[in-house]
């Protein structure tokens, strides 16, 4: 415990080291649960989530994302905190974490705590420490804000349950989409130790939701109701070729594992004897904001197709709220990893997130976007335009007649603008001008729509023609995404060649 009100150098150093070590975790969201404030308590939660700042890399800072410790027993090759790395190791005590969280929260710096940790001593010991911190925060510090906790693979069930009653969202990092590459990259983890807790958490969440009279499945974007094809309401489109006879490769085996791990799972309950069983008396719902996971991309050889198929499976089988992607940043030297000077695959990450959105909000299925024959997204064009170009037969559609699902398939029209179109066209005709104001991106949409029976310009509906024009339009934006980090300045004799000093 440190004195509130004085500056403490060791805390400063710990904040620096442990925030720096936590920065590669991507899920910094505070969304998914609505909770009003209470007198005597500190904090509330908003389902929309609230970002509080944006770091120099443009990523949002919503939670105090920090590790409890960067000591680690595991030796995952991609991780900065792996056992074999020679880095300074520190640990924050539960009291220190609580004070930081509460004081930051009162100053409106953050929306809550995102607590993760390296594995110290054993998974069980680490998880117990995490739970202790959360319990302290909820009881002694009366903290009512958002808490996201990472579960440690291999931790016992009762501790998972305790954490679930104290936190709003739980997450288990899948890290890699296939069992094979996980084994290779993370010797301490196996696919089972990741998937088991995930399915147990899921079934406990479902039970709790049903007990409260809610639907067992998590809430999804409301537009999904109108989408027959949505992954949340429809099992995956069956494979066109009879894959059952084909020899199974590693990817399919992993997908099968994801699917089968689920029904075996039972409920988890907090232990009775432990001090932590107090968590039961806090009277909180079990992980009301659901669970999420993250995958690293670019560290191993998986294709985009593997990744989005795994993503879809995860959404369907474990009812995850989100799947996050993290472009691998070469920090470790290892023969199994990309070389240290490899560029960060930012554009690839961007394309995967676009695909993730298409699945969660637009009613696309993974198999529609990519296939075994076409396993990667194109660099120069986004997945939705790409899909539209491959299905030019469906276009152009008339915005005054097409239904919601059909409108959402048009590049440049999103859930918001589609809804506005539906509303507005009941009361009068639409024009391209008014479409633009409603938020339709005509730059992309005009190749695919008619309004009042006319297209915006006289253009041929040919794949090559549209492709050329679209890539020309998008070229600059794509370049910006993939070269986001680079900065240029005018060279000057004095500044760049040390002439200043010589002068």
């Amino acid at each position, binding site marked *: 415990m440190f004195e509130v009100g004085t500056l403490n150098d060791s805390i400063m150093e710990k904040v*620096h080291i442990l*925030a720096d070590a936590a920065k590669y975790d991507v899920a910094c969201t505070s969304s998914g649960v609505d909770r009003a*404030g209470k007198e*005597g308590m500190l904090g509330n939660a908003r389902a929309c989530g609230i970002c509080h700042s944006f770091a120099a890399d443009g990523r949002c800072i919503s939670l105090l994302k920090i590790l409890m410790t960067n000591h680690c027993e595991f030796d995952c090759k991609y991780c900065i905190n792996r056992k074999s790395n020679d880095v300074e190791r520190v640990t924050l005590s539960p009291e220190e974490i609580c004070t930081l969280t509460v004081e930051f929260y009162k100053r409106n*710096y953050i929306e809550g705590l995102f607590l993760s940790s390296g594995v110290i001593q054993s998974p069980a010991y680490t998880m117990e420490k995490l739970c202790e911190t959360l319990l302290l925060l909820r009881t002694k510090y009366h903290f009512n804000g958002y808490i996201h906790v990472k579960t440690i693979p291999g931790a016992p069930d009762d501790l998972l349950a305790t954490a679930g009653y104290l936190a709003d969202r739980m997450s288990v990092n899948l890290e890699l989409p296939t069992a094979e590459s996980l084994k290779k990259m993370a010797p301490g983890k196996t696919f089972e130790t990741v998937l088991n807790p995930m399915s147990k958490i899921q079934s406990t969440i479902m039970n709790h939701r049903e007990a409260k009279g809610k639907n067992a499945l998590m809430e999804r974007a409301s537009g999904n109701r109108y989408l027959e094809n949505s992954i949340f309401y429809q099992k995956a489109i069956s494979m066109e070729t009879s894959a059952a006879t084909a020899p199974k490769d590693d990817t399919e085996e992993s997908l099968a594992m994801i699917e089968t791990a689920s029904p075996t799972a039972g409920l988890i309950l907090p232990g009775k004897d432990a001090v932590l069983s107090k968590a039961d008396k806090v009277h909180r719902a079990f992980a009301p904001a659901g669970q999420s996971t993250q995958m690293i991309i670019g560290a191993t050889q998986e294709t985009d197709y593997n990744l989005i198929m795994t993503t879809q499976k995860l959404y369907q089988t474990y009812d995850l709220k989100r799947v996050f992607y993290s472009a691998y940043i070469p920090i470790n030297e290892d023969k199994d990893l990309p070389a240290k000077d490899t560029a960060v695959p930012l554009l690839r990450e961007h394309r995967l997130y676009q695909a993730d959105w298409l699945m969660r909000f637009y009613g696309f299925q993974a198999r529609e976007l990519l296939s075994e024959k076409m396993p990667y997204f194109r660099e120069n064009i986004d997945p939705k335009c790409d899909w539209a170009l491959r299905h030019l037969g469906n276009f152009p559609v008339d915005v005054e007649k097409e239904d919601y699902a059909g409108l959402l398939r048009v590049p440049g029209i999103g859930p918001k603008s589609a809804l506005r179109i539906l509303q507005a066209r009941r009361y009068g005709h639409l024009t391209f001008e008014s479409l633009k104001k409603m938020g339709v991106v005509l730059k992309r949409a005009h190749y695919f729509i008619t309004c009042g029976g006319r297209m915006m310009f006289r253009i041929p509906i040919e794949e090559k023609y549209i492709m050329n024009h679209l890539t020309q339009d998008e070229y600059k934006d794509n370049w910006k995404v993939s070269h*986001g980090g680079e900065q240029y300045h005018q060279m000057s004799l004095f500044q760049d060649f040390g002439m200043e000093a010589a002068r």
Partner: protein
Amino acid sequence: MTIFTCQDNFAARMTCIYDAWASKLGHEHVQLRIEPIEQLEFFVDYVHVEADEDKTEKVVRTVQREISMEAYVWMYYASLSAEEDALDTTYRFLVKAFRYGSKICQMLQDDTVMRMMEIKRLVGNEAHSFREFARFTSYGDMAYIAHIEPKANVILYVAQHFRDRMPSENFVIIDDNRRLAAVHPKNEPCYLKELDEEEISRITQAEEVSSGDPFIAYWKEYFRSIAIKERTNPVCQRNHFPLWMRRHVTEFV
């Protein structure tokens, strides 16, 4: 052309709408503006309107009854807006609303309705931004104080959010441009207060005297450490967090 002018508050705006309408000059012959009017025009009559409680109530009641609650909400949001055309757009919006009834809020293909929706959205978005970006500083046991400089008059929405968020703390949110403070005493309701010269100088003094808040340093260190160097992207950062909103934000000052 006659231009009706009024001060920048809800009652004055509503009265202005009432008077412009009741003048029977014809909708196309009147315009509504917020004072101060900087550049006067030729061949135009300027009519100053003072806030009137009865007229305000009449406008509010009529809109709620004859059009819809949603239209009233739009109108209320627009009355907080700092956009120059907000008041005049509200007037044009009401002209159409009385003609089309409750479906007006869906008729986005109409330019006036669209503009009205944009104004409402701007105010709503700004209120949300300041919920995110207001930064409190602790001054010992006194209170947590936040300064904001929003364009629209969103302090009430911001304060409501914080009342729910920290019901058992003393805090004050100050709108520096409008000299308006939302004061929240511990476990009590929040109230708005206009600050005079003396109160402002007392607050400034108290802020100068109190010793530095150590969590400012921790937060700055955290903010620096959490960014990934290889992904630096100032343009993306600016898109999410515009420079003009950073004026009182701890990690940028």
